[in-house]
């Protein structure tokens, strides 16, 4: 077959398409080559599962950035047993089937020692099956559904390799329930994207706060594909809540908040975490009323948290949002600490250490309960999380009071 140069002259797009295909093949080939090279060295590999394309690419990118930073930190401290720690990143595309297939590839072909991920609850439940079948430690940083720890509790022998670093929905609700009275909230509107964990959080929060006399006066879930922001914003404001709780970690939270500010400029809003933790986005929202953001950790909470934020800022040019980046960072930190404590990266040695140990992270000291859930909440020794308020040009930690 011959290719005439005139073909490219007549159709520049064909040339661009060919170049794009070439670059794509190169981008696939280069990491594979570097992974092969890495496998030749003495390294401990962590398989990272995150959505780097599709609608959750923003959260997935922050996830990988934070994991990279944590691995660099571990290597700067001398690695583990003198071995370097490396990552093999897989793009889950936010799809369960892809997440499962990639998890299997990471374990069986890339020979990773442990997995960190995935991002969505649905993906993570799928990846748990792979971790169970392959007897590989899986640390779950952000997926919040009760199903994950429920599976560990019900079938411990099968799923004992799975540990959740991030907060569960009841813990999340408990932390919000402690914050609401501090802001004198008696009535709240609960609004979010109509996805699984939002609905579960809405229901769990209602159950948690009702004994304290706090009631939801409006609840709505908009379609993530084409959200009817205007109507939801008007209805939420019309229900006269003391605060709107915005359960959407993605880009729609920004769009919704802009609409809400147009109909109710002074109404306080609490974002349960995610995009609104980004200072650049928060700066674009009119600030007549307070905007609060819940985060796992924040600059100023502790010296470790401040150091992490500064490293992140220095490396990536923007501060972390405190959720989809901070929790993956801590997941790797906990995993590396467990390897060091166990004196081995073997699954059978690491699982008991994770079950019994205490591990320092950016958000505080991690301990896991019987269902392998990190202990967050308001009890003694629990990780407490942070609530910050955006103010012009800066953020201020408002809860827990310090």
């Amino acid at each position, binding site marked *: 077959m011959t290719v005439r140069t005139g073909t490219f002259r*007549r*159709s*520049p*797009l064909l040339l661009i*398409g060919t170049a*794009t295909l070439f670059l794509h093949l190169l981008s696939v080939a280069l990491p594979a080559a570097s992974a092969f090279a890495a496998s030749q060295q003495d390294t401990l590999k962590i398989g990272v599962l995150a959505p*780097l394309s599709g*609608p959750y*690419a*923003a959260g*997935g*990118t*922050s996830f990988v950035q934070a994991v990279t930073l944590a691995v660099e930190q571990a290597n700067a401290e001398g690695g583990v047993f003198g071995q370097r720690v490396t990552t093999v990143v897989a793009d889950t595309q936010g799809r369960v089937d892809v997440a499962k297939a990639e998890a299997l590839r990471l374990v069986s072909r890339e020979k990773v020692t442990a997995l960190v991920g995935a991002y969505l609850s649905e993906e993570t439940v799928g990846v748990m099956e792979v971790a169970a079948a392959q007897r590989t430690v899986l640390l779950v940083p952000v997926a919040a559904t009760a199903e994950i720890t429920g599976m560990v509790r019900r079938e411990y022998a099968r799923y004992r390799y799975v540990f959740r670093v991030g907060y569960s929905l009841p813990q999340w609700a408990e932390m919000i329930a402690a914050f609401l009275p501090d802001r004198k909230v008696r009535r709240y509107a609960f609004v979010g994207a*109509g996805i699984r964990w939002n609905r579960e959080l809405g229901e769990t929060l209602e159950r948690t706060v009702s004994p304290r006399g706090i009631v939801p006066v409006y609840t*709505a*879930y*908009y*379609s993530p*594909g*084409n*959200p*009817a922001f*205007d*109507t*939801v914003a*008007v*209805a939420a404001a019309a229900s006269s809540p003391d605060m709107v709780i915005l359960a959407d970690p*993605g*880009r*729609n939270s*920004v*769009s919704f908040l*802009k*609409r809400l*500010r*147009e*109909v109710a*400029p002074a109404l306080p809003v609490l974002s349960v975490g995610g*995009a609104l933790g*980004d200072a*650049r*986005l928060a*700066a*674009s*929202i*009119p600030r*007549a009323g307070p905007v609060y953001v819940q985060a796992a950790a924040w600059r100023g909470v502790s010296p470790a948290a401040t150091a992490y934020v500064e490293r992140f800022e220095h490396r990536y040019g923007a501060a972390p949002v405190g959720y989809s980046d901070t929790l993956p960072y801590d997941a790797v930190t906990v995993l590396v600490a467990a390897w060091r404590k166990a004196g081995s990266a073997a699954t059978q040695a690491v699982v008991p250490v994770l079950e019994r140990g205490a591990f320092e992270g950016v958000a505080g000291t991690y301990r896991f309960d019987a269902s392998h859930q990190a202990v967050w909440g308001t009890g003694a020794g629990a990780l407490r999380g942070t609530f910050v308020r955006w103010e012009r040009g800066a953020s201020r930690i408002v809860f827990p009071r310090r």
Partner: protein
Amino acid sequence: MLLDGLFAGGTYALMAAGMALILGVVKVINLSHGAFFTLGAYVAYALAERGVETPLAAAPLAAVIAFAFGVFLGKSFINPARKHPFALPVGTLACALLFEQAAQGIWGPHPLSIESGDPWIGPGGLVIRRWGVIAFLSSAALLGGLRWILSARPGLPLRLIAEDEEIAGSLGMDVEAIRYLTFGGACAMAAAAGALLAPSAAVTPMIGRAPLLLSLVVVIVAGMDSVAAIFLLSIGLGIFGNACAWFLSPQWSYVSLLVAVCLLLSARPAGIVVLACRRDG
């Protein structure tokens, strides 16, 4: 609810009119139309980053850039590939995905946002969305201009090519050039819509997907013959979507909209305006 439906629908009409123009004159379903909306939104963001925070400045700049891209795309790909019916939808979809990847490469996957400013307070304390009003009025003015062009002498070649390309060619018109210039013009309209709506949303590489679908729906239902019908139907759909969200559930607004369109099309497959005109005739 009515005002918001009016504002949103009015701006989407600008994009839908561009889509209809391409469908009528170039006879192509342009699935890269949403990418030009995205381009407009990013131009607005890039200007805002440099201190120019008004989309009224961003819209003309976005339109010029999109026109240049559109002409390039029309000349290098759309015109040569027109004879292959399956190549164009797939090709334009590939262009859209390529653009999304490029936008992600340049600006990153994270959402970006332009300061939207405080709303206007109207008579009786009525809160009016600042950018909703500005975008609606800009859109109405641009569509009015398009309607005038299409009905006056400058629009004659477009009308003729839409009716019969062979006759237009036999009259000495450069049909190929008119096609790619029209394609560029329609892309400019989508980019202007993107720039005008950028302050009210978060700018991401996929911001153009929902408007693409909505404009396709509008064009399918309204037909390609009347700019006024497209404008009115866009507003109608905007208000209908809001009403469904209000009276049913926010999650049902989109589904209800699509169900209504399906029912409408099963009753009037050629589009409501086309049939009405034929009956009148």
